[in-house]
């Protein structure tokens, strides 16, 4: 009961923040979509970091650490510390510059212009939105599972079917509603403000969870001594090829539509400096407590010294919720749950705004012309499409039993597989329209074939010839793009002049 009350208070605070940022909303689409390109270094960093950390980072990482051990940090988090910042430097900065110079609001506007093809946008739109849906699913599923875990037994007469716990469908509906309210109130500016607040909340609450749980287990040394020694090493849990090919996954940040949009909100290029340096440290502060909690969960016992905290056969998604629910006081449990919800909602908001922006700018306005709709109608169209996508995702959650980590990896694999497209668009003058089509189609087909071969994500450990599917998708995209580009006519000089400015 206490946990649920604390989470509700937190959600009310967020609604208040949404109301405040709505007072600053200028009512035009430029403000709704890119906050009039006015975001400074601190909010940009918090916003980008909050967006990249979702249920995958907290619920997923704890569950994966419980399942395959501490190598989870190396395979995703420390590689992200290097590669995310590299993507911001090598991709984010040039995109910000090109976006500001040419007035781009979305990735698709950029690709259409760079590859001189309107139809490329119609091909990319369903692929990008289709890949965002599993990302949204990761967030909603994580929120539902955690809330169910920490409120078990709290409402026995209200929720009989879930053992008195708040059912996932209710949690998912409520947090979707809260996020929709505050982004409708102020668009990407609201999302940036909310992310700043929520990033602080989830880092602090993660630390509180870590300290509380370790204390309950007899201190950090005692807790680590309880962990399964087989999960303290990489050998036996992850092969060399698997570990190496996991490095492709963080490249996904170079192709996330919501991060592209976040980059465009920056006031100046210098706003990115803090993000480059602080992002790796923030990753460590968020992931290490979760990885250790997952490791401790492999052998932790209750204070009676006998009963395992995590019973055998527990879903990895439920590990964090159960560790918090069983080892923390209700107040701490509530605060930590609010922190987890913060991590999840700080990603959902940017993703919601991004899909709305893409639909309005890349499909409706592009098809019917910029003058066909006034500013208010454009914002309304974005909101309508966002509601549709949220509803579709919500319906998926009711039938989707996949592991958060596995689902996240498939989503990131799709975006990372398309990374050669954005890299070539920025750095390779010889990349052509036909090459771009070949790259996108190659990535889409290989993703679909591999996803089907994995039982649509049911086989969480699926690999192709010993490597992660992302390596195959990335290679297919890169190879198709390069070969077809070399065989087809180079872009026009006008396009090259627009995108490749000579050094002064």
């Amino acid at each position: 009961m206490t946990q649920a009350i604390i989470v509700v208070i937190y959600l009310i605070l967020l609604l208040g923040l949404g109301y405040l940022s709505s007072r600053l909303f200028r009512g035009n689409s430029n403000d709704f979509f890119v906050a009039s390109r006015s975001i400074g270094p601190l909010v940009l960093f918090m916003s980008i970091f909050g967006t990249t950390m979702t249920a995958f980072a907290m619920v997923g990482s704890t569950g994966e650490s419980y399942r395959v051990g501490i190598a989870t940090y190396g395979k995703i988090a420390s590689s992200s510390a290097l590669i995310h910042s590299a993507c911001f430097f090598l991709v984010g900065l040039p995109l910000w510059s090109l976006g500001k110079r040419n007035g781009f609001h979305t990735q698709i506007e950029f690709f259409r212009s760079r590859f001189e093809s309107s139809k490329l946008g119609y091909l990319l739109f369903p692929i990008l939105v289709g890949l965002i849906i599993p990302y949204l699913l990761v967030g909603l599923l994580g929120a539902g599972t955690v809330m169910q875990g920490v409120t078990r037994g709290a409402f026995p007469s209200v929720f009989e079917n879930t053992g008195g716990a708040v059912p996932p469908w209710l949690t998912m509906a409520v947090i979707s509603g809260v996020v929709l309210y505050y982004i409708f109130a102020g668009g990407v500016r609201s999302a940036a403000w909310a992310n700043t607040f929520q990033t602080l909340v989830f880092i602090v609450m993660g630390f509180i969870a870590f300290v509380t749980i370790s204390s309950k287990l007899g201190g950090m040394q005692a807790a680590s001594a309880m962990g399964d020694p087989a999960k303290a090493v990489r050998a036996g849990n992850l092969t060399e090829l698997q570990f190496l090919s996991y490095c492709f996954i963080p490249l996904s940040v170079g192709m996330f539509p919501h991060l592209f949009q976040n980059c465009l909100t920056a006031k100046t290029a210098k706003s990115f400096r803090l993000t480059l340096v602080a992002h790796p440290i923030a990753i460590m502060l968020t992931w290490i407590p979760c990885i250790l909690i997952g490791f401790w969960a492999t052998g932790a016992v209750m204070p009676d010294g006998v009963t395992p905290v995590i019973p055998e056969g527990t879903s990895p998604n439920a590990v964090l919720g159960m560790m918090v629910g069983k080892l923390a006081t209700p107040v701490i449990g509530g605060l930590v749950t609010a922190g987890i919800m913060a991590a999840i909602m700080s990603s959902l908001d940017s993703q919601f705004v991004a899909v709305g922006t893409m639909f309005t700018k890349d499909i409706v306005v592009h098809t019917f012309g910029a003058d066909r709709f006034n500013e208010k109608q454009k914002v309304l169209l974005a909101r309508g499409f966002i509601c549709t996508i949220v509803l579709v995702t919500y319906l998926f959650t009711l039938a989707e039993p996949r592991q958060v980590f596995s689902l996240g990896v498939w989503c990131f694999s799709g975006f990372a597989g398309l990374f050669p497209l954005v890299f070539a668009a920025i750095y390779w003058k010889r990349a052509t329209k036909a090459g771009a089509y070949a790259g996108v189609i190659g990535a889409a087909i290989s993703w679909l074939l591999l996803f089907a071969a994995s039982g649509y994500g049911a086989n969480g450990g699926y690999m192709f010839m010993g490597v992660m599917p992302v390596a195959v998708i990335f290679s297919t995209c890169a190879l198709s793009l390069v070969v077809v580009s070399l065989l087809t006519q180079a872009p026009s000089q006008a396009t090259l002049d627009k995108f490749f400015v000579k050094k002064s």
Partner: protein
Amino acid sequence: MSRGAVIAFMLVLFVLHQDFWLKDNGSLVFGILPVGLAYHMAFTVLAASGWFVVVKYAWPNFREEEGEEEAGQ
């Protein structure tokens, strides 16, 4: 600092990330952190320090904010 130095720095870090020399080592640092985890924490701090150097000494100029032709394209 040139762009080549930045790329070299990233490649060195990429090689350091492949921690095969520790994959069987399950000892605990300070009795708390499995050594493989402690190594990657140190790696993360090194990556952040490296990016600090890049920001300080290899930051590109953008004409959008300085009114001149953009460097680094």
